Structures are given as structure tokens and as C-alpha cells.
């Protein structure tokens, strides 16, 4: 399919940690498509997982699932060509406000059709949420983003891998008790609640905590007279905690709420509403166009070629800089065999201005450009950075509630020196995210005290305990914690002080603990600091079983709205000013946990 055809790449639609999605035109047909660019250079080990995603996608043919068209390599970027859906995702469409029940009923029906199809094909989507539901401009509803989908070879078999996005995850998925298609039904119920409320249940809780809450709490329900009885019942049916009693997609299609749903055309209202809403807002006036990076890296000093007596290595002359390219020809896989080759292919037409006027070939059809106002054009600077692989300890504030499925954590070495933490990358990573000025200044009394507690209390305690621990695994866990703590100390001594203070307060308020530990104010015995965080970490580790984490790193669907982030920032469990430290620590622990899983399944 990709042979000999060419795509005209238009503007950017959104981006995630996996790469960027562009709108494009297939020149031979004039059809508008979406092309996902995945930069393979920026991922350590994902090629096989990406291939898995493609093989799930390419075996789907349903009007309720975004249609896969082709994929091919261009240099180290993989292009995945998909059907273009101009309405945007339901998460985008939620921005002007939540949906009404009539709209939700239609969406749920279409999603159930999609799930019915997937399930009979032996596929589990595993990441159903508003962000992964796309609408066409005509109101068609389609499931997207198969990054964590599973293909079962046996229709009756079960999975027990831990994937999804916490808020939408079914209890049986979290408990790793083995789950099947019914997990998607739970997520559908949560999505229905997300559509009516604007956010999933527990949205204000830290995602890590949500993982404990979902199996423990009673299933969420819609309550109140503002919802119809049918809707409330539909949600209740989806959200049955016992997956054996949870109905299948087929059964739910017979539900009253679904039976009474109207035509998909009614969903155009949502698309239009979003367009109006966008119109009323000042947004970036320039869409981001596709820019081809041919060879940006400066070659290393080439005089340094190896000396082999027989083989002469041809030195590379590499002068091509960034150029914009409007029409991209796709001939099989190797578009560019080398820089020279690439250079030859450039021609004068490839000036940046080419973008604003579409090539004549594609004009005749109705594919004339219109600012797709339904599609966010926010400059996703942050997301871009995500794909550059340098994100040490970087907590992602978008986690869960918007598009992201699982955040990325970089490994941190076991070396607990301050020097390592204060390297630029690291500081930048953390401070950027916490919206604080770069650099750590020790100005307040608390921060001085924080530094002092570290050098006098925490660090020696860690050293001592480490020396006393013989078990390798325990030592490692301990050194990681020490490492994380020293990172905290380097960046936020004030928070460190607060943290210790809070811990001591907690210990003292618990009668049992206070009698055993640290009875005196201000003193802190060995081991005490670990009590709280360790408990969490330990519990989480019990639940590890996740060969799919790697693919999670790529999961961050489309655009992360800024206002969403602001909203998140106000929620408890997110980032209270003065409380960043606790979140950071929790994030670090969570990151460790993910790393632990990743280490356990290195091959996957």
C-alpha cells in the first residue's frame, strides 16, 4: 500500500511521549489521514512492542475501530498511517463542558459495538477512556490507541498483566487475579462517568493510591436525581466488581439506556460545540507544520576514522541541516540511504512556504484545508521533551487524568552522592516540572535544617543500616531509597525537613509506634524514615507482573491540555505548594516499582 504512494504532511495534531501525530493527505487518493511518527531512536527497546501494536491494529477491520492503513520506516522514524478523525478525542470534546446523557448513550452504544467486535476477535483493548475514543466530524465513534491491547490466542484464556490507566482500571486487573474481556466493560463504565462528570471517579486522588482504592472500595456509582434511572443502572451494570457477574458487550447492547440511544449524527453537536469554544479562545495562531529533520547531528570529528589496513571507511560528509520538506515520497523502506542521497532528493520546491498551499493534485477533493479547530493546536513543548529520553525522576503531573497512561521514570543509579543528583539534566527535570526557578538556593531556615537533617540524621542512618544489611535485594532497595532521598535533599531541603517533621509527628500521634520509636521530639532512630514509604513500596511490589510497562512509556495519547494541568494542580494528592516533596517521594517510589517490574521482565 505504501509503495509508490506519497503523503503530503500537513500540520501537527498532537503529540505524546511516543512521538507526534500529523494530519496528512494521501496523494494518490486525496484522502486525509493521520500519521503517527514514532522516533525509534528515543526508545530503548520498544520495536517489538510497537510491532505488536501494529499487528493488533492491522488485523482489525471494523467501523468502530480506527482503521489502520499502513506503516513504514523513514530513517529511524516509524510512520503509522491511520484513518483521520476530525472530531478529536472525547477528552478534547469534554473541554467546553461535560456531555449530556443523550450523547453519552450514543457514544456508549458505539463503543459497545467496537468492544463486541474486538472481544469476538480475541482482543482486549485494556485502555478504554475518553482520551482513546475518537469522533469523526460526522459523529462516528471509534476506538483508538491499541498500545496496550492484548491478543489472546485462546478466546477463553485470561491475562494477568498489569496495564491500563489506574483510574479506569478494573479491580481484577489491579489484583492480577486473571482477567478477560470484562475488564474493558469496567473501563467503559468509568468512561461513561468521565463523560458526564468531566473526570473519572477518584480523579482527585493520587493514581498510586487509586490502585489500592479500586479493589477495596465499593464500585463507584452515579447518584442523584440529576441522572436518569437507566443511565444510573447502565453504569452500575458496567461497574460490577465481580467480573463474572459483569455483563458482556453483547448483553449490554440490550440495555434500555443503549436501546433508547439516538443517531450518531447527534454527536456533531459536540464537535461543533468544541469548535465554537475554540473559536472563542485565543489560541496559537500558527499551526505547527511538519518539519523534516534530515540529519541534525553534527558528525563527530571525522579525521578520527578507524585505521583498518584493508578496508577504507568512507568519511561522511555531512552538511545537510534542517530543511523543510513538503511532499514526502515513500518508496518502500529506504527513503534515504545516506545523507548524500537525501540531499539529492531535496529540491527547491521544498521551501517552508509550500505548506500553506496544498499541492494541486490534492485540491480537487473535499480535503481542502480548514483549520481543524476541533483539534488542539497547543504547543506541546513538554510532551516533546518526553520523547527525548532525558527525564530523570521527572514526575508527570498529567498522570492519569488526562491522556497519559503511565509516566516515564528514568532509572537512577545506586550511587548516592549529591554530585550525581545535581547534574544539570536532573535538576532541570525536576525543577521544570515543579514550576520552580532552576537552581536550589538554601535560603530559608527550613532548608538549612533540611540539609542538616540529611547530613546528621538521614544519611548516617542509611549508611549504618546499609552496612548492617546483608541480603542483596534488601541492600539494593535500601540504597535506592537513600539515593532518592539524597535527590530530595539536593533539590528541596525544605521539603525534606517538612517530610521528616511530618513523619515524626505521625509517629508520635500513633501511641503504639511512639512508644517504640522516637519518643523524643527531634530525634530519629535508624530505620524510622523508611517506615512509611517502604510500606507502600512493599505492597506495590507484591503486585508486580508487568511485561507491558515498556509500551506504557509510549502511551500518552495526543494533547495534554494546559488547563487540565492547572486543574490537576489544585487537586489534593497532586501538587500542593509546600507539599511537592511528598508527591515527589511517592513518585520516586512508584518509579522504582516500575523499574523493578521492568528489570524482572527484561526480555519483554
Amino acid at each position, binding site marked *: 500500500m505504501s509503495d509508490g504512494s506519497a503523503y503530503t504532511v500537513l500540520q501537527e495534531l498532537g503529540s505524546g511521549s511516543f512521538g507526534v501525530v500529523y494530519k496528512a493527505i494521501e496523494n494518490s487518493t486525496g484522502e486525509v489521514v493521520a500519521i503517527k511518527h514514532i522516533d525509534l*531512536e528515543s526508545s530503548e527497546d520498544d520495536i517489538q512492542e510497537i510491532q505488536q501494536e501494529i*499487528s493488533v491494529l492491522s488485523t482489525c477491520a471494523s467501523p468502530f475501530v480506527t482503521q489502520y492503513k499502513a506503516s513504514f*520506516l523513514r530513517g529511524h522514524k516509524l510512520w503509522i498511517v491511520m484513518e483521520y478523525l476530525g472530531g478529536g478525542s472525547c477528552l478534547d470534546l469534554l473541554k467546553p463542558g461535560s456531555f449530556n446523557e443523550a450523547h453519552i448513550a450514543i457514544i456508549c452504544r458505539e463503543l459497545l459495538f467496537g468492544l463486541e467486535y474486538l472481544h469476538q476477535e480475541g482482543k482486549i483493548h485494556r485502555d478504554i477512556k475518553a482520551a482513546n475514543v475518537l469522533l469523526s466530524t460526522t459523529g462516528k465513534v471509534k476506538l483508538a490507541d491499541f498500545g496496550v491491547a492484548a491478543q489472546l490466542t485462546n478466546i477463553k484464556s485470561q491475562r494477568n498483566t498489569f496495564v491500563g490507566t489506574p483510574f479506569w482500571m478494573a479491580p481484577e486487573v489491579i489484583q492480577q487475579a486473571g482477567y478477560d474481556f470484562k475488564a474493558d466493560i469496567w473501563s467503559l463504565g468509568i468512561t461513561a462517568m468521565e463523560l458526564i462528570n468531566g473526570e473519572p471517579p477518584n480523579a482527585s486522588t493520587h493514581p498510586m493510591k487509586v490502585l489500592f482504592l479500586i479493589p477495596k472500595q465499593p464500585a463507584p456509582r452515579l447518584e442523584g436525581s440529576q441522572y436518569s434511572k437507566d443511565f444510573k443502572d447502565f453504569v452500575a451494570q458496567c461497574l460490577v466488581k465481580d467480573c463474572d457477574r459483569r455483563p458482556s458487550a453483547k448483553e449490554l447492547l440490550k440495555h434500555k439506556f443503549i436501546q433508547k440511544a439516538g443517531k450518531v449524527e447527534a454527536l456533531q453537536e459536540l464537535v461543533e460545540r468544541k469548535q465554537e469554544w475554540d473559536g472563542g479562545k485565543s489560541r496559537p495562531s500558527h499551526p505547527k507544520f511538519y518539519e523534516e529533520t534530515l540529519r541534525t547531528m553534527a558528525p563527530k570529528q571525522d579525521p578520527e576514522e578507524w585505521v583498518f589496513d584493508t578496508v577504507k571507511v568512507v568519511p561522511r560528509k555531512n552538511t545537510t541541516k534542517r530543511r523543510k520538506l513538503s511532499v514526502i515520497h515513500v518508496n518502500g523502506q529506504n527513503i534515504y540511504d545516506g545523507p548524500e542521497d537525501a540531499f539529492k532528493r531535496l529540491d527547491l520546491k521544498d521551501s517552508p512556504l509550500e505548506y500553506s498551499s496544498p499541492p494541486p493534485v490534492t485540491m480537487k477533493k473535499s480535503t481542502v484545508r480548514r483549520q481543524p479547530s476541533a483539534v488542539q493546536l497547543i504547543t506541546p513543548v513538554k510532551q516533546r521533551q518526553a520523547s527525548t529520553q532525558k527525564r530523570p525522576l521527572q514526575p508527570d503531573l498529567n498522570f492519569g487524568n488526562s491522556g497519559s497512561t503511565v509516566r516515564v521514570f528514568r532509572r537512577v543509579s545506586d550511587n548516592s552522592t549529591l554530585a550525581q543528583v545535581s547534574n544539570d539534566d536532573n535538576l532541570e527535570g525536576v525543577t521544570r516540572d515543579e514550576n520552580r526557578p532552576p537552581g536550589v538556593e538554601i535560603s530559608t531556615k527550613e532548608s538549612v535544617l533540611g540539609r542538616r537533617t540529611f547530613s546528621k540524621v538521614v544519611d548516617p542512618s542509611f549508611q549504618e543500616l546499609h552496612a548492617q544489611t546483608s541480603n542483596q535485594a534488601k541492600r539494593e532497595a535500601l540504597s535506592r531509597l537513600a539515593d532518592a532521598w539524597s535527590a530530595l535533599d539536593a533539590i528541596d531541603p525544605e521539603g525534606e525537613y517538612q517530610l521528616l517533621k511530618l513523619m515524626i509527628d505521625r509517629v508520635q500521634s500513633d501511641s503504639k509506634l511512639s512508644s517504640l520509636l522516637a519518643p523524643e521530639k527531634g530525634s530519629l532512630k535508624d530505620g524510622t524514615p523508611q517506615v512509611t514509604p517502604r510500606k507502600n513500596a512493599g505492597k506495590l511490589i507484591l503486585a508486580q507482573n508487568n511485561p507491558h510497562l515498556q509500551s506504557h512509556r509510549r502511551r500518552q495519547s495526543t494533547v495534554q491540555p494546559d488547563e487540565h494541568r492547572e486543574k490537576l494542580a489544585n487537586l489534593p494528592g497532586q501538587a500542593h505548594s509546600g507539599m511537592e516533596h511528598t508527591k515527589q517521594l511517592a513518585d520516586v517510589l512508584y518509579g522504582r516499582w516500575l523499574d523493578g517490574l521492568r528489570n524482572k521482565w527484561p526480555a519483554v
Partner: protein
Amino acid sequence: MSFLFNRRPRTNTVDLPKQAKEQITKINGPGGAVKSEELAKTLTQMKFMLQGTQETETSPEQIFALVTGMIHEDLLYLLALNLYRLPFESRKDAQVIFSYVLRFKPPNASPKSDPIALSHVINSRPQVLVELCNGYEHKESATAAGTVLREVLKHDSAAALILYDDPNKSPENAARGLNGIQVDVRQSGKGVFWNFFSWIDQGSFEVGADAFTTFRELLTKHKQIVAQYLSTNFDLFFDNYNDILMKSSSYVTKRQSIKLLGEILLDRANYAVMTAYVDRGEHLKICMNLLRDERKMVQYEGFHVFKVFVANPHKSVAVQKILLNNRDKLLKFLQHFLEDRTEDEQFIDEREFLIKQIRNMPPTPVEPTQKPALLSQQPR
């Protein structure tokens, strides 16, 4: 599934394979479109019989009859051979049918026995496996064939059959399936395994990446078989590997094959292969050029092969020469090699180790005290 119950009495289980065979042999001839539609229905029916639906359970007796019927009609072979000709949905059905049939054990069979269809294929019809591999010839059949293959490859005998397939094999040995394999006879390079190299490095990402995944399974799942195979066919294998995969113009092929090479070499079972590999100066040159590739992940994967050469305590004179000729450059280069990998401790340690090793090499090559056990068959 309505057609299972509503229509006129359907053909019984035994007839399904027969019917499918009749249809499949005609899809290429006149009226092929009609036959192909009929075949699609037959296959769907077989699929439902095998896997049940969300509403109906399966019957082991029925499945047993179906599986033996399929063996009798040689349907697995026909399906594999014609996979790419089937319509979209039928290919998926065929994939499901393969998976179930090759896994099926009669209810009274001992738990240790092989599934009946699988043992039939292994002992008397290895061509089914060969034709499944040939599924990579066509974009249409690649994914389905690959999925089936990877499942079958869990059995070492299936892996052995694919590795040792060779048209030069005497026909009587070929017909003997597993028993016809002679592990110490060198391969002609015309067997189906050797086609994987070109399947991996052809145009389409989907086909190439899938073929590579299967290739990797073949070379990593069953260590003893592979170690023996690579030892016997050392030159043929690495000539292909270096020329087609390591030098591929496709980023994915190149990066994945460097990584796989590292995995193969560092596998304990392949010790003899590893020592023979790192003995060659030619191999070191390829590797050193990878370190200078402009793509960081290629450099990184290349490093993990390069380190084996340097860490080898019995470096050949050829290898020593190259390292010594480039000693200063290498030292300088390695100091700054992938500097931004500041969090990869293992990498940093290994890089330091290599620097130390290279620095401490004696100024002139020294005859190694130990030669690779696996002497290359064709000296170069």
C-alpha cells in the same frame, strides 16, 4: 452463529475438512471468488467448532473428529500454502484454526504427549512448517503465519525442523521428519531458514519486523539445538548475518540484529560460537564501525558486541592488531562515548573496563595461549 442452528442440516464434522479441501484447491481456478466465499464460511464454522463462542462450549469429541479429518485431508498443509490467497477475515480464522488444532490433545491422552496434529506435522509432514515460513513471502499472510509459527516454535522439534530444512537432504530423510535430521551435516543454505535473512530485510516494516521476531525465537528459544547448528554452520550463518542484517539500510533491521547478535554471543550455550566469532578481525571491524554510526542506539547496541572482543582474554593476533593500531583513537573515543548515558551504571562500568583493557594491552600483538575450540572450517 445462527447458521449453525437455523439452516438445513449442516455437513457433519468429518465433512468440514473435506469440504474445505475441495474449496481451497479451487480458489485459484475459474469461479474462485465463489469458492473463496464458501471457503470463508467453512473456515468460520471450523473456528467456532474449535474455540466455541462466548455462548457455546466446545465438544472435545467433535474437535477430535475435526482434527483427525484435517490430518487425513492434509488440510494444514493446504491452508499454510494458500494462506495469502484467503480473504482478510479467513486469514484470521485460519490462524485461529492452526492455533487450536496444533494444541489439541484428546481428552484421554497423557498430559506429556504431544498434541496429535503437531506430532503428525513433526513426524511426517514438516512441509507444513516450511509453508508457514513461506507465509513471509506475502504481506497478506505474514502476520498470521508468524503468529502460528511462534506458537509452534515453543516445541524444540519444530524449531529443529525449520533450521534443518534443506532441499539437498535426501528425499527419504526429508520424509522422516525429525528423524531425518543430521545435525553434523553442513547446510547448503537453500533451506527455508536461510530465507529469513531476506524476509527480514525486504521492504515492508510489518513483514520484516514479524519475520525478525520469529527469527529471534528460532535462535534463542532452544539453546542446545542452536549452539550445535551455529557451530556446524558458522561461516554460512555469519556471512549472511553480517552482510544482510548488520549492514542493512533499514534502521530497525540493523538495530535489532546487532542486539540479537550480542544476545547470541553472550549466551553461555554458545560459548564456542562466541570465541570463534570474536577471533576474526573482520568481525571486529564491522563492530567498530557500528560504534561510529550516527544513530545513538546503533552505537549502543554495537558497544555490547564490541565489549566481547575487548574482554576476550585470548584475543587473536588479528584482533590485537586492529585494537593496537587504533589504541589512542579508541581511548579518546571511548572517554566520550555516549556520554549522556549518565544513569546507565552498567554501561559506564563496562566502558571504564574496556578503556582499562585497551590501555593495558601489550604494545605488540602476542600469540594467544588459547585458540577457539571451534576452528573455522574455511580459513580466510
